[in-house]
């Protein structure tokens, strides 16, 4: 119904002018009714006739037939075919189910052809300029250029602007619009008391300077950027992008010019001397969903991510539905499939995977310390350095002790030394195996290893056959889960497998080791989830290694015993001894030392000059383990502690996923039908030709793309951006289709106003606060939102702007305002996401992991902007109030009005608790029912209730009181909602009655509405 009214209005708005203009009148008809088959997409073109390009529309089609003959409608095939009563010939074709053109549309086409069939470039592809301000009769009313455009139109339509909004309402509107929160009673009073002409402007400046402003602006940007705290798709594991979110808040707070805001987010990493903040900004393009579903084809999803970036960029900055050209040329706009993949190419050079890590950020990511964290880390690093120096000094001063130890150790008959640090398993029994059996180690020796645990395995082996298991903690079949060190075709092989086919990693030496020779082997791994970080050593020397599989990103713990000589379905034939497992990655020098056949004691017996380098190192390490004097031991213990302290702190520093470039550019191809495995012609990074404006001096990378987006010659970015600001304030953009400025988008009824604002935005240096101030200072914005029946009928959606906006609050404002007016709101900028109330079981019923655990304390009362967003189970209350899902980019604000919203506001503990606290505030603010209700109205709505409202509320409050006086137990239960303590100074029945009255106020139409 609303849609139908809107279309009728749009048609009405366009039909007013006498002269036919291509962009306004003709293009919408051609685009909607003809281009699908006679437009830009050659695959869909049904005949030679192409109507979107002037020369082709007017070309000879053969046989003396013409689609359009300028000036001669009756000779124009197009007109004949839309007019014919022969259904087989009529266009658009009846056999495809299309209706005939309406008489008005045909008349428009006829007039256009008769007047010469002049084409124009699509309006939004021509850079905006400021048109001269129109002359108006009511010049007193028009305070700003905006008002001149609006008033000129109203005068043409025979309409009048509405009177200014009442001042208290205006302040509430302004405060909600600029900060997302309501004005406090004090702020309202001060504003009402300030009779100066510049009082309103002062309020505007005060609100724009408030940190709340940045939070209010950020949330719409987060939605456009599809920001969330989880990856989405099936597994929907967690990620950490809040440092990027806080960058956005900071940028709005500093009023970072929109061109810089753009460049840093698209290409901050490519700026010369990029700062940490500029790198964090690039998280914008990593906010897309990522998949960790077992079995997916890596490339299919990687391509999806790149496409998401291209589509998001085109929607956010260009208001262009370039995604439509992913599978074929665009059907309505002059974007080719090649254009799409040329834009895609800018984003196709990230060193990334399609199948991602499910338990945190996926590469590329960076550590993003907060300033205080960076300082603390520097202190801890310095402490490590100091401890290292002390340990070295202490070792240097221990020479004497060392020589003494060497002399005594040379004579000792102790078993061979083994490095003690993190030693987890030592087996000296070994075995001579026949290829049929292995040896299970007693469970007492069990050492569990998971996928992110570093480790070192070492053993002496003398194989008789080229295939067998050396050491394993894995299921005993070839593709089984677990850790295993094997010999296959004489090559050493390390398996760390969760699921053979897609999760785990496997590496092997490039060359076979000799049979029937005793040799030392070792493997080390740092737990980094990268196969390339595994090392295989033979006799202490790193062997060249081949990566067979590299997806060690999933937990594993098969609960199998350690086995020597068996595992993975293999059996060893030969001798194995000296098996060791350490829970650390042993450095190469230490591996070389332990691989020496000479025992530490034997080395101690040699003269120092006769010892090799590795021998010296082995003896040194043995000394540190076995013979170090107290002071050295102490210094080394302190070094160990300093390192642990540093590493533990380092692990708490947040990371953020960012954009980086591969060293060698990944080639990009047009993908036929959009399919990842159907590459067509190769393409280079380029912006859509039809939009022009590329400067050849710009690099053909993201930095060039970013500069193009915010160049003065770009026809779209400024228009699209100011249009979103307009939508934010008025509920509907000047172009209603905020995501589509193409020929299927809306031709704006106030195009000159839009262009003026866009040009003003650019010439102000892309100053966001300036443009917002310009809008809210207009008389247009400050009109009353009251509407009479006549105007409502004439302009139900307020596209002509003869009144102020009246809109339901945005989803986050509904909650934030309730927290604020009840005094529960905790205002604190930034930080990790928080988990406010949510009904139990919602996560659990959809997936197998943990259920949602609400925070305790302040996490319950932070602004909604900071609420944890799990994509597959989005916060239900926000979704009720029309929050976008954060799955993909959404820039259009929608507002529905449903019974689920009513239930939510009445019964959700968030609002029940807020009502209780609001009731307490009302109790303290005044005496008597009427006084307290008046106080409630002032707290929430910034004005007093009228007599009818007050009477209804007073009657209800009285009845609630009567009820709770008779049912004190229920009063207590009602007052128990929420974690915040109740004010026990107020008698329970009174508090409960006021809580119910508070709930009444929070549920008012006016409360959830900006008037």
């Amino acid at each position: 119904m609303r849609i139908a009214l809107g279309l009728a209005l749009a048609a009405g708005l366009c039909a007013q002018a006498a002269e036919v203009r291509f962009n306004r009148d003709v293009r919408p008809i051609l685009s909607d009714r003809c281009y699908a088959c006679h437009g830009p997409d050659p695959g869909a073109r049904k005949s030679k006739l192409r109507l979107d390009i002037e020369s082709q529309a007017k070309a000879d089609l053969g046989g003396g037939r013409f689609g359009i003959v300028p000036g001669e409608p009756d000779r124009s095939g197009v007109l004949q075919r839309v007019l014919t009563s022969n259904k087989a010939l009529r266009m658009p074709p009846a056999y495809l189910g299309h209706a005939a053109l309406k008489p008005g549309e045909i008349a428009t086409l006829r007039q256009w052809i008769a007047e010469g069939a002049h084409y124009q470039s699509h309006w939004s592809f021509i850079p905006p300029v400021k048109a001269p301000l129109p002359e108006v009769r009511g010049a007193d009313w028009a305070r700003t250029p905006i008002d001149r455009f609006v008033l000129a139109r109203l005068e043409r339509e025979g309409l009048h602007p509405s009177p200014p909004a009442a001042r208290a309402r205006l302040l509430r509107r302004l405060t909600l619009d600029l900060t997302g929160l309501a004005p406090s009673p004090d702020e309202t009073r001060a504003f009402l008391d300030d009779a100066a002409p510049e009082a309103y402007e002062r309020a505007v400046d005060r609100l724009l300077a408030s940190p709340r402003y940045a939070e209010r602006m950020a949330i719409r940007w987060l939605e456009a950027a599809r920001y969330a705290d989880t990856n989405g798709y099936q597994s929907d594991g967690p990620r950490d992008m809040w440092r990027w979110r806080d960058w956005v808040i900071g940028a709005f707070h500093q009023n970072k010019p929109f061109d810089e805001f753009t460049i840093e987010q698209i290409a901050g990493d490519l700026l010369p001397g990029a700062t940490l903040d500029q790198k964090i900004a690039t998280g914008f393009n990593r906010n897309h969903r990522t998949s960790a579903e077992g079995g997916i084809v890596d490339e299919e999803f990687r391509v999806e991510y790149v496409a998401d970036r291209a589509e998001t960029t085109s929607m956010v900055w260009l208001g262009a539905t370039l995604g439509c050209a992913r599978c074929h040329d665009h059907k309505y706009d002059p974007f080719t499939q090649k254009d799409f993949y040329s834009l895609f190419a800018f984003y196709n050079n990230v060193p990334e995977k399609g199948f991602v890590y499910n338990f945190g950020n996926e590469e590329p990511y960076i550590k993003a310390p907060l300033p205080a964290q960076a300082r603390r880390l520097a202190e801890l690093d310095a402490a490590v350095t100091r401890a290292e120096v002390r340990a070295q000094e202490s070792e240097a001063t221990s020479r004497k002790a060392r020589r003494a130890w060497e002399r005594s150790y040379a004579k000792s008959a102790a078993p061979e030394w083994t490095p003690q640090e993190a030693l987890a398993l030592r087996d000296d029994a070994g075995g001579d195996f026949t290829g049929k059996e292995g040896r299970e180690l007693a469970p007492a020796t069990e050492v569990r290893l998971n996928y992110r645990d570093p480790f070192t395995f070492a053993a002496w082996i003398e194989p008789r056959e080229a295939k067998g298991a050396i050491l394993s903690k894995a299921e005993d079949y070839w593709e089984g889960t677990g850790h295993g060190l094997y010999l296959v075709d004489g090559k050493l092989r390390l398996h760390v497998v969760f699921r053979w086919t897609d999760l785990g990693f496997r590496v092997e030496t490039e060359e076979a080791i000799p049979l029937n020779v005793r040799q030392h082997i070792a493997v080390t791994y740092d737990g980094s989830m990268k196969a390339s970080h595994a090392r295989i050593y033979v006799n202490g020397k790193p062997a060249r290694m081949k990566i067979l599989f590299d997806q060690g990103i999933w937990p594993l713990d098969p609960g199998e015993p350690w086995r020597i000589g068996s595992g993975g379905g293999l059996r060893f034939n030969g001798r194995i001894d000296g098996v060791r497992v350490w829970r650390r990655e042993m450095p190469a020098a230490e591996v070389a030392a332990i691989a020496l056949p000479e025992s530490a004691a034997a080395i101690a017996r040699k003269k120092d000059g006769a010892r090799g380098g590795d021998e010296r190192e082995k003896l040194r390490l043995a000394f540190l383990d076995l013979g170090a004097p107290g002071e050295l031991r102490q210094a080394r213990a302190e070094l160990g502690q300093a390192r642990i302290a540093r590493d533990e702190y380092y692990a708490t520093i947040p990371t953020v996923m960012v954009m980086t470039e591969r060293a060698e550019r990944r080639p990009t191809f047009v993908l036929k039908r959009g399919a990842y495995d159907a590459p067509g012609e190769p393409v280079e990074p380029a912006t859509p030709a039809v939009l022009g404006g590329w400067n050849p001096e710009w690099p053909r990378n993201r930095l060039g793309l970013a500069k193009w987006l915010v160049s003065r010659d770009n026809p779209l970015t400024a228009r699209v951006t100011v249009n979103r600001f307009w939508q934010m304030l008025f509920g509907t953009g000047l172009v209603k289709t905020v995501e589509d400025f193409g020929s299927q988008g809306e031709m704006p009824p106030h195009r000159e106003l839009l262009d003026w604002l866009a040009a003003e935005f650019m010439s102000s240096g892309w100053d966001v606060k300036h443009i917002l101030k310009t809008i809210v200072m207009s008389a247009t914005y400050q009109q009353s939102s009251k509407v009479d029946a006549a105007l409502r009928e004439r302009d139900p959606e307020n596209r002509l702007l003869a009144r102020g906006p009246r809109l339901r609050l945005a989803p986050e404002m509904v909650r934030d305002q309730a927290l604020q007016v009840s005094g529960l709101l905790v205002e604190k900028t930034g930080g990790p996401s928080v988990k406010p109330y949510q009904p139990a079981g919602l996560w659990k019923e959809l997936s197998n992991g943990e259920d949602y655990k609400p925070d305790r304390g302040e996490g319950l009362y932070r602004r909604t902007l900071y609420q944890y967003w799990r994509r597959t189970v989005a916060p239900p209350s926000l979704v009720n109030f029309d929050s976008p899902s954060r799955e993909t980019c959404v820039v259009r604000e929608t507002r529905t009005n449903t019974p689920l919203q009513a239930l939510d506001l009445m019964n959700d503990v968030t609002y029940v608790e807020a009502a209780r606290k609001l009731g307490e505030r009302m109790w303290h603010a005044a005496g008597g029912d009427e006084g307290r209700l008046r106080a409630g109205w002032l707290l929430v709505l910034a004005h007093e209730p009228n007599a009818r409202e007050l009477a209804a509320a007073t009657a209800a409050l009285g009845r609630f009181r009567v009820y709770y006086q008779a049912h004190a137990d229920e009063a207590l239960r009602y007052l128990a909602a929420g974690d915040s303590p109740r004010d026990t100074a107020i008698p329970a029945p009174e508090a409960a009655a006021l809580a119910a009255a508070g709930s009444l106020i929070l549920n008012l139409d006016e409360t959830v509405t900006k008037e």
Partner: protein
Amino acid sequence: MNRRQWFGHTLGTLGQAALATLQAKSGGLPHLPTHKPTAKRVIYLFMSGGPSQIELFDYKPGLSAFAGKDLPESVRNGQRLTQMSATQSSFPMVPSKFSFARHGQSGAWVSELLPRTAAIADRLAFIKSMHTEAINHDPAVTFFQTGSQIAGRPSMGSWTIYGLGSESENLPGFVVMLSQGGGGGQPLYDRLWGSGFLPTKYQGVKFRSTGDPVLYLSNPDGFGAGNRRVFLDALKEINTSKLDESGDPETATRIAQYEMAFQMQSSVPELIGLSQESASTYALYGEDARKPGSFAYNCLLARRLAERGVRFIQLYHRDWDHHGGLPKGLPARCQETDRPAAALISDLAQRGMLDDTLVVWGGEFGRTVYCQGRLTADSYGRDHHPRCFTVWLAGGGIKPGISLGATDDFSYNVVENPVHVHDLQATILHCLGVDHTKLTYQFQGRHFRLTDVHGKVVKPLLA
């Protein structure tokens, strides 16, 4: 004064505008239905995870001769595999461990795992030749529910109530219920019943088995129905005062939505209050139907929702993803679902409602003929298989007692009458009286539809 009169009194023609924004008993596009519907409503029993057609419906007696042998390359023909079996070194075929027999006059082949389904085979139409392009759960379920593998489009139920509106006085038009299977199934996501780019009022409303059946339905503890009535009367009075002042039809709608919410507070508990159900109901559905959250309970609720005019009722039963341990897992899922699904059909039939209720049973894809993972004497698994699987339909204008389409000897490829996901969607809409090409929504400059630019009504399925 009832609501309609009240609107008429207060607002004149605006009352209609306000009503049009309610999901219940209203809405729909003026040009729909495009033809006489055979189904007024749909109950979709979605078996999430991908039930194996080889063990349930697609009888392949010849397979035993190939047990343990590799699937011939000529059959596989280079088709892509999931990354879970792409690096598998061999593809040994496994025949079904479970036996089959023909049932009913139609002689449909049904597995011993589904005795109750077998008993009503003559009421069902089996599509043996269902196929999809997606090979992983997320894209595949999303494809079935929204017509696109990539999330973001409206779900089938949302399209339906957007197009046709709702018939229910006091319940949402699109209701979703979940049951868990063995508890280890693939996750589901809210967006599967989301409204995509349609307004959120068209999203499915999830009825839950724990806590509030509908989120935020119950009044706060200590705030009973009497207080709620006082509250709503005052709220209406104040909001009406506001409406008189502002003239905003949204205010009128809001007043109506609070009344609707109040009605739901009694209609939903009435719906789930199963005390009026007779012993014969439980004889039919089984004792499981007394347990909230079971598939049987949800099937019984589905019938009650259908009785109350709810247009699109979507059930999900999880945990059909048998990569390994299929001989244990599959019978458990069948045990949970066979009887209730069959009971639902019989129940609808005996109430005369099967004629105008379309019931659909099926998963997002089938399973491979070859074993995935470790093949042992008594256990095996099967990987995802998009190229053929079985779905059944009943009632609502569907021809009963037929089997459509066929697969090759290995249940690997469709050899006869392929039915694509979009074809099934087109057919479901057709039964609802909707030409699937006419149910569109303009977004980002394009007229989107459930079936994208594809889909053909499967005529042989229609009665």
